[in-house]
């Protein structure tokens, strides 16, 4: 078997703080009058896609953007709640680029690339300035300066936020930059279009096939380069914090066309989601991690109390302080409730597995997130500020609640909408859920995949976060990629097309071939007319993934998952029912079916990758590799690499070949990750 690519991460030489700076001066630039002859396709209009498209259009390139929603403003970045990091040291707590760099490398359990992470930390503060200039109403203090809060895995306050709607505000800003360019005609926006395939001509990405979701028609689009910004794939777990339409199709098709898929097994499980309530639930809702700044996580110390709470025989409020187990504060005194997500999630699972879960659902899983203490604390502080010497309990509560409301009002509101409980008065119930995928298409320092001319940005790529992502870093990465990195690196690549007859017709054989393949695939799905619904397959896949490839894994379970996924794949391809014909217009069932077909393949690769990695690191917890205290045991000697999977044309997933990018740490010392 011919190995088709060699992994070259193209990390520039020099010391960390000079790399990006010096490297930029070596990149080719294209003069303004030439840019309008170059076409760029961008798949996705989230933070990554929107920021890239507005910047590139502004530079003068001709840009086409695609998203499956009815408006670019609805990309799932809009749902991010907590905030965005930047090393600005506005709070004087000794934050710096180096510290953000170090926290991110450590948080990712030393499974990310030094050079990339450093660049991210360097760029971080310009992102905030940029967003302020675009009108993002970040939280401010009374003197008019920007406010901060802190997130898991750090000891400084570096997270900028706009209440619990940071993602929405950032996305609206990049969307507004985008609509400005759409208005000028420099961006052509294709709403309700789904990318179906990447077209590769002479080994280089030159276009895509899309399905117009309204008319159902397949369309061809050619360009000089293609940027994929299609977000994450944790919807493979069915119940996740992702939007219902979030999918892996775009990156999966690119993978099948030759792009390496990196670290597929790293899925972040977010510790603070609303627990599952029933069998028909369609998705899980996140409660921002920022709540851990003010909320304390606990379960009862005595198992009888837990049982009584679950059965509704005991009120939470009646459990005295001494009978509560604030397990994170107990186990990790120096970070407490602000330990990183993987650690918080596993600790909650451990308590629930031991029978202390407090939620009355099928799995009896849930822990409390309690705001009682901070309401008291803030209430007292405020009363003092107002000169009330002997505040009544009512006054304390009143002022305390007001302060919490100003910080997290919309999150509390969202919680109450869903559960019917008022979290100001009774503790929230939370439990971990599948959230963010650190894995994705492999990219080099230029953010280019192993297919020349195909770039991948935002959550869709694998870069920067390692085996675990610290909170408030994804928004930062998406915007860094889009606003400040891709405009430079892409011009270097595009410069080769100048002075050449460089356009490609969509009548090219490869376009026809690609389209035919997509067409046949759709036809095959529609022709089954069996008696199983797409949702049934998706839910079952989700169960398998959560059980065996979720928060903790073991070898036996992973092999079991692979077998079960194959069975499910069989059911899908023999027994699926999707109504309608190929010439019908809008068809939601078909959209879902196409996405599930891809999830069924990706999920197998996720399990394979997890089997391969005989260690525990970050979100990847292999039960066989743990210390006697149940902490993860990393194996740097053998696994300090990025796993990169290469698809073998027309062969099954199990025949994919793994390549390695060895991670070299010149600037940080690898230590056991401890948050005690």
């Amino acid at each position, binding site marked *: 078997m011919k190995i088709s690519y060699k992994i070259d991460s193209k990390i520039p030489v020099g010391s960390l703080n000079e790399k990006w700076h010096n490297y930029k001066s070596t990149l080719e630039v294209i003069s303004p009058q030439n840019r309008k002859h170059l076409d760029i396709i961008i798949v996705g209009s989230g933070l990554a896609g929107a*920021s890239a498209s507005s*910047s590139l259009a*502004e530079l003068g390139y001709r840009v086409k953007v695609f998203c499956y929603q*009815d*408006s670019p*403003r*609805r990309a*799932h970045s*809009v*749902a991010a709640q907590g905030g965005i990091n930047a090393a*600005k040291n*506005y709070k004087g707590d000794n934050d710096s680029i180096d510290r953000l760099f170090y926290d991110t490398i450590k948080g990712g359990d030393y499974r990310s690339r030094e050079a990339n992470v450093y660049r991210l930390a360097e*760029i971080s503060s310009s992102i905030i*300035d*940029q*967003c*302020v*200039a*675009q*009108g993002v*109403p*970040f939280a*401010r203090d009374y003197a*008019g*300066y*920007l406010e901060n809060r802190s997130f898991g895995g750090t000891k400084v306050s570096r997270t900028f936020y706009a209440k619990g*709607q940071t993602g929405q*505000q950032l996305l609206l800003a990049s*969307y*507004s*930059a985008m*609509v*400005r360019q759409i208005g000028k005609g420099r961006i052509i926006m294709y*709403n309700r279009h789904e990318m179906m395939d990447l077209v590769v001509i002479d080994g280089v990405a030159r276009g895509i096939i899309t399905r117009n979701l*309204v008319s159902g028609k397949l369309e061809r689009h050619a360009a000089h380069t293609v940027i994929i910004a299609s977000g994450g794939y944790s919807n493979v777990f069915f119940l996740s914090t992702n*939007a*219902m*339409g979030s999918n892996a199709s775009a990156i999966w098709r690119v993978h099948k066309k030759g792009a390496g898929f990196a670290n597929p097994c790293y899925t972040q499980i977010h510790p603070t989601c609303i627990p599952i*309530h*029933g069998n*028909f*639930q*369609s*998705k899980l*809702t*996140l409660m921002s991690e920022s709540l851990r700044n003010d909320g304390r996580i606990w379960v009862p110390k005595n198992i009888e109390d837990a049982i009584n709470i679950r059965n509704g025989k005991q009120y939470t409020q009646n459990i005295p302080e001494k009978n509560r187990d604030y397990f994170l504060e107990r186990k990790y005194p120096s970070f407490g409730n602000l330990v990183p997500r993987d650690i918080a999630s596993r600790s909650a699972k451990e308590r629930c597995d031991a029978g202390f879960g407090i939620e009355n659902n099928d799995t009896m899983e849930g822990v409390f997130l309690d705001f009682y203490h901070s309401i008291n604390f803030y209430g007292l502080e405020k009363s003092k500020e107002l000169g009330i010497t002997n505040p009544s309990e009512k006054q304390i509560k009143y002022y305390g609640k007001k302060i919490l409301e100003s910080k997290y009002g919309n999150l509390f*509101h*969202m919680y109450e*909408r*869903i559960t*019917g409980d008022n979290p100001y008065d009774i503790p929230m119930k939370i439990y971990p859920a599948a959230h963010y995928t650190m894995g994705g298409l492999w990219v080099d320092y230029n953010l280019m995949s192993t297919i020349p001319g195909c770039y991948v940005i935002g959550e869709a790529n694998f870069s920067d976060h390692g085996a675990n992502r610290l909170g408030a870093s994804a928004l930062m990465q998406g915007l860094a990629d889009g*606003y400040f990195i891709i405009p430079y690196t892409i011009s270097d690549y595009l410069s080769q097309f100048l002075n050449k007859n460089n356009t490609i017709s969509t009548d090219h054989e490869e376009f026809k071939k690609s389209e035919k393949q997509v067409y046949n695939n759709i036809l095959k799905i529609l022709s089954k007319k069996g008696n199983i*619904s797409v*949702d049934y397959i998706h839910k079952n896949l989700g169960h398998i993934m959560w059980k065996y490839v979720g928060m903790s894994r073991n070898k036996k379970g992973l092999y079991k998952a692979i077998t079960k996924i194959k069975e499910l794949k069989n059911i899908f391809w023999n027994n699926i*029912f999707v*109504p*309608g014909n190929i010439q019908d217009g*809008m068809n*939601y*069932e078909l959209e879902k079916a196409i996405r599930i077909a891809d999830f069924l393949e990706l999920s197998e690769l996720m399990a394979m990758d997890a089997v391969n990695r005989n260690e525990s690191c970050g979100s990847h917890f292999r039960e066989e590799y743990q210390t006697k205290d149940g902490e993860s045991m990393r194996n740097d000697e053998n696994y300090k690499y990025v796993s990169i999977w290469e698809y073998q044309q027309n062969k099954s997933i199990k025949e994919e070949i793994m390549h390695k990018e060895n991670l070299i740490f010149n600037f940080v010392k690898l230590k056991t990750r401890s948050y005690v």
Partner: protein
Amino acid sequence: MKAKKSLNFTLKVWRQKNNKSNGYFKTYKIYDISPDSSFLEMLDILNNNILLEKKEFPIAFDHDCREGICGMCSLYINGRAHGPENLATTCQLHMRNFCNDEIIYVEPWRAKSFPIIQDLIVDRSSLDRIMMSGGFISVGTFGHTIDGNLIPIAKSDADKAFDSASCIGCGACIATCKNKSAMLFVAAKISHLALLPQGKIERKKRVLDMVQKMDEEGFGSCTNTMACEIDCPKGISTENISFLNKEYITSFIR
């Protein structure tokens, strides 16, 4: 603890194949729904029945985040945009808000500027076009901006701007308005940007352009019936509209 009993409903759902064909209400019965289910989860269950038992096209409706923030869901339920609950989108509406055996009417947004695509799905791209006409600050995106703290912004202004900026662009305000006016949506954007120092420079041009575009797109005019405020899931206040009017008038004064 809440008692969990299951509920039954009769649904009258608007079905329409596409923009060319005529629509009609179709009746469906559904049983055993948990009060904790969201409205959309209830429709999922109904759709599964339609799909597997009747082998028909399920009811098409728009949705994505299912947590009240993307603005994609859009149902007109029992005569109200996003249903009977205040300050909630359809995906945040739960069946505990309905009575057992209730008859529930489900319709798409209805407005000339929102043509129907299929069943309960409408085309809201007119809102994007209004945004294109001026819903932005014309700053480059290359990071050569000044430090974010160099222009302090009064907390009250930042908070007010935030409140206006929290519009999710769902279009409920328009669907519920008897004139089909887009005033609340546009006003929210105008206030958000005009309240911030960065947005003040272009404020006159912005308000003129956006109002003109809104008219061109065929939205009606505002006659202060305030229905928009009642059905807005994000509590965008009609004070924004007064603000817009002021901005509009002063934009003529040099």
